[in-house]
C-alpha cells in the first residue's frame, strides 16, 4: 500500500511538472470515431490551448451519465460532452457538475440560458430510410405497418430516450398503446446510436431512429442521395446536445476554455459535416451545401426542463412494459 501511495505521488508529481496539461473529455462513441468530429475538434482546440485534449468515447449519451455516477467524485473527467435536454435534470441531481459562464449568440430554435450546460449542436429525431421505401406518416401508421425499425435503448442512448419523449410529447397517456403497436416492428434495441445505424446500413431493418440531418451525411460525404428522413405529422422531437464541466476537475480553466471553444466559430463550423447536426451558433458561412435538401419538420416538439424527469421515469416504465411482453 505504501508503495502504491509512493508511486501515485511520483506520478502525480510528474503530471504536474509535465509541460502540457491534459484535459479529459468524456463523450459518446460516434464523436471520437475517425469520421466523427473528434479529430477536427482535437486539432483545432490543441492549436489554441497548449494542452493535450483527451476525448474518451464511452458508449452513448445516456451511458455517459451512468458512467459518471459510477465513478462519482473520483472521475478523471474534466468535461462531459454529449448529454442532452432530456438528461440535464438527472445530471444536475448528481451534484457532480459545476457552473460555467459560456456566452454565445445561439441560433437555437428555443431560448437558452443554463448556468451549467452549454449547447453545442441540435437536431430533430427522425426515422431514416432508403428512398425506395414509402415511409409511414406517423407512429400509428408505423405500428400498423410491417416496416421494421431499429431503435436504441433509452437507458443508454440519448436518441433512444428522445424517442420515448417524442412519443410521450405527441401522445401523452396514449403512449403505451402506441408502443404496444410498434413493439412488433422493432427488430432489435441497441445500446447506442452507432450500433443501430450500422445495423440499418447493413440492411437489418427498413428504418432506423436517427436525425433529420443524417441523410446529409450520405449526400455530402458519400454523394449518395438514396437516404431520407421520414416526416411524421405529429411533429418531431428536438434534441439539444450539451456539454458541462465537472466540479471535480483539476483543470477548471482549461475546461472553461474548452466549453467556450465548442460554441466558437472554429468548432461550430466543424460540427455540421462531422457530427451531422445543426450548429448551436450559425457559422458565418451558413449551413453547408446539401443541408437545404433536408426535411424540416412541420412542428417541433420538446418537453419543458422541469417536467422532463417525471416524464422520463413514466415513459421508461411504459416502454419497458410494452417491449418486454
Amino acid at each position, binding site marked *: 500500500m505504501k508503495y502504491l501511495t509512493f508511486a501515485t505521488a511520483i506520478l502525480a508529481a510528474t503530471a504536474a511538472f509535465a509541460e502540457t496539461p491534459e484535459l479529459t473529455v468524456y463523450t459518446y*462513441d460516434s464523436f471520437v*470515431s475517425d469520421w466523427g468530429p473528434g479529430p477536427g475538434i482535437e486539432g483545432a482546440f490543441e492549436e489554441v490551448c497548449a494542452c493535450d485534449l483527451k476525448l*474518451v*468515447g*464511452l458508449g452513448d449519451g*445516456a*451511458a455517459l451519465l*451512468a*458512467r459518471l*455516477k*459510477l*465513478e462519482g467524485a*473520483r472521475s478523471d473527467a474534466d468535461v462531459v460532452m454529449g448529454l442532452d435536454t432530456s438528461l440535464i435534470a438527472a445530471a444536475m441531481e448528481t451534484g457532480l457538475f459545476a457552473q460555467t459562464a459560456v456566452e454565445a449568440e445561439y441560433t437555437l430554435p428555443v431560448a437558452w440560458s443554463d448556468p451549467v450546460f452549454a449547447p453545442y449542436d441540435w437536431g430533430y429525431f427522425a426515422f431514416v430510410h432508403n428512398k425506395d421505401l414509402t415511409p409511414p406518416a406517423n407512429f400509428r401508421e408505423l405500428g400498423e405497418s410491417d416496416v421494421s425499425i431499429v*431503435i436504441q*435503448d433509452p*437507458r*443508454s442512448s440519448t436518441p433512444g430516450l428522445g424517442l420515448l419523449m417524442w412519443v410521450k410529447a405527441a401522445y401523452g397517456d396514449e403512449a403505451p398503446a402506441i408502443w404496444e403497436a410498434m*413493439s412488433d416492428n*422493432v*427488430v*432489435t*434495441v441497441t*445500446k*447506442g446510436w*452507432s*450500433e443501430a*445505424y*450500422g*445495423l440499418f*446500413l*447493413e*440492411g*437489418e431493418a427498413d428504418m432506423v431512429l436517427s436525425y433529420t440531418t443524417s441523410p446529409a451525411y450520405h449526400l455530402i460525404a458519400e454523394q449518395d442521395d438514396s437516404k431520407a428522413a421520414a416526416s411524421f405529422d405529429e411533429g418531431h422531437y428536438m434534441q439539444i446536445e450539451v456539454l458541462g464541466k465537472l466540479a471535480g476537475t483539476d483543470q477548471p480553466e482549461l475546461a472553461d476554455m474548452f466549453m467556450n471553444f465548442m460554441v466558437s466559430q472554429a468548432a461550430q463550423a466543424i460540427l455540421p459535416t462531422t457530427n451531422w447536426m445543426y450548429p448551436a451558433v450559425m457559422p458565418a458561412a451558413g449551413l453547408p451545401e446539401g443541408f437545404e435538401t433536408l426535411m424540416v419538420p412541420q412542428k417541433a416538439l420538446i418537453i419543458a426542463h422541469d417536467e422532463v424527469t417525471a416524464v422520463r421515469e413514466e415513459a421508461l*416504465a411504459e*416502454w*419497458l*412494459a410494452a*417491449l*418486454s*411482453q
Partner: protein
Amino acid sequence: MARSSLAVTEVSISPKAGIGAALAVLVLIALALAAVVSRAELGGGLGPADWAAVRFTVVQAAISAFVSVLLAIPVARALARRRFFGRGALVTLLGAPFILPVIVAVLGLLAVFGRSGWLNDVLGALGLPGVSIYGFHGVVLAHVFFNLPLATRLLLQGWQGIPAERFRLCAQLRLSPRAVLRAVELPMLAQVVPGALALVFVICLTSFAVALTLGGGPRATTIELAIYQAFRFDFDLGRAALLSVVQLVLAGGMALAALWLVPVLRVGGGLDRAMLRWDARGGLQLLGDGLVIVLAALFLLVPLAAVVWRGLLGLGQMPGEVYAAAITSVWVAMASIAVMLVLALPMAGWIAGRAGGSVEAVGLLGLSASPLMIGTGWFIVINPYADPFDFALAVTVLVNAMMALPFALRILVPPMRDAVAQYGRLSAMLGVRGWRLWWVLLLPRLRAQIGFAAGLSGALSMGDLGVIALFADPERVTLPLQMVRLMGAYRMDAAAGAALLLLTLSLGIFWICDKGGRWRAET
C-alpha cells in the same frame, strides 16, 4: 468408509491447504453476496421488466436445453453406431465449444445466420423471406450451437457405456432397430438425458455474452444482462443487487439439483470405439446416420469456417488497440491459471483424501454464482476505499479462476485419488509429506491432468466476457471486450480479425498447457 479414513491418516496430504482454498472461495463469494444483499432494496421489489427478464431467462434456458439434447440424441446415436474417416476428429471437435470464446462463436453465427449472412443469401436467391438472428430465437440458436456438442458428448458416453455384448445379444435375437432402441437404448437415455438437460439448463441460465450481443432489447434480456443494465445504464446498485440475489437462488438451486443428476464428464479416451451394430446395417439406417452426422458437422463447422475466413480478410484492418487488448488478455489468462491451480490443487488433495464430495459443491458454487453478481458485489466492497476500476483486471482474474474451478476439480480429483491409493502408503512409510509429497509424488503423477485443467482454465479466461464488461474502461480492455466494441462500431472486418486472433490465442493457450502437461509424461 473405514478404509478411506484409514487412507487419510496414512497419507498425509494436509487438508489445511485444501480447507483454506475452499474457505477463500467461499469468502470471495460470500463477501460479494453480503455486499450485494446489503445494498439490495428488498422492499423495492422487481418491476415488470425484471420479471420479464426472469421469465425469459428460464424459458430460453429450458428451450435451449430441450432442443440441444433432443438434437444430440440422433447425433450421438449415429456417432456411436458408425466408424468413418474423420470420426475421431469430429468427436474431438465436439469438445471444442468448451474452449471456444462465446463472442467468437456469435460472430461466426452472425456471418451464417445474420440478415446479410450466407443463409439469408441462399434464402433470398430462392425467393424466400429472410430470417433474423436477433431476439429469442437467436439466443436459443447460439445456446444450441454451444450445447449440442456438449450434450452429444454426454450421450455418446452413455452409448459407449452399453456393453457390446448386449448388441450382440440383440443381433442373435434378430431384434429390429426399433426394438433395439426400446430394449437397450431408451433405458440408457432415461438415465443420461435428465443429467444432460440439467447441465445445459444451468449453463444457459447464466448466459450473458450471447444475450448481450444477440438479445433484442427488453424482450430478450437475461437476468445477467439485466444486472449489467441496472449497473451500467441506471447505476441502480439496489436493483442490480436484487437481481443478483434472484440469479444466485435460481442458478445456485438448479446447480445443486444438477449435481445429483449430471453424469461425470470424462475428458478423453474411450469415445473412439465404434460398436459392432448388427441392427444398424440397413441402407436406410446408414443413410439416416450419415445425414445426421453431416448436418451436425455443418452446423458446427460452417460458423467456425466463417470466423476463420472473415478473420483472415480482416487481419490487416485491426487497430492497434486490438493488440494491446490481446496482451492484456494473455496476462489475465495466465494469472487466472495460476490462481486456479493454487485453489484447485489443495482442494483436490483434500477431496481425494475424503470419501464424500462436499468440497466439490463449493467448486460448483463458483459456477452458479454469477460473475456479474460477484463483480457487482466487489464493486460495492471496493468502492468506498479505492477506485474499483483499478481492480477490474484483478477481479476478472479471480472470477475466471473460480469459473474454471468446478471443471478443474472434476479433472484433478480422480487421478489424485488413484495416486493416493497406489502410492500413499509407500510415501507415508518413507516419511514423504508436506510439500515434498506434492513435489515427489502428486505433481509428477498428475502432470497430464494439471496441464489439461490449466489449458481449459486459460482458454475459458481468454474468451470470457463477463465481469470485465461491468468495469469496462477504454484503458483496461480484454480482447473479447475489444471485439464487442468493434462489432458495436460496426467495424465487422476488424472484429472478424480480432475474433481470429482470439480464437488462435484461446486454442493456443489450451494446446500449450495440454501438450506441456503430457510432454514426456510416462502416464
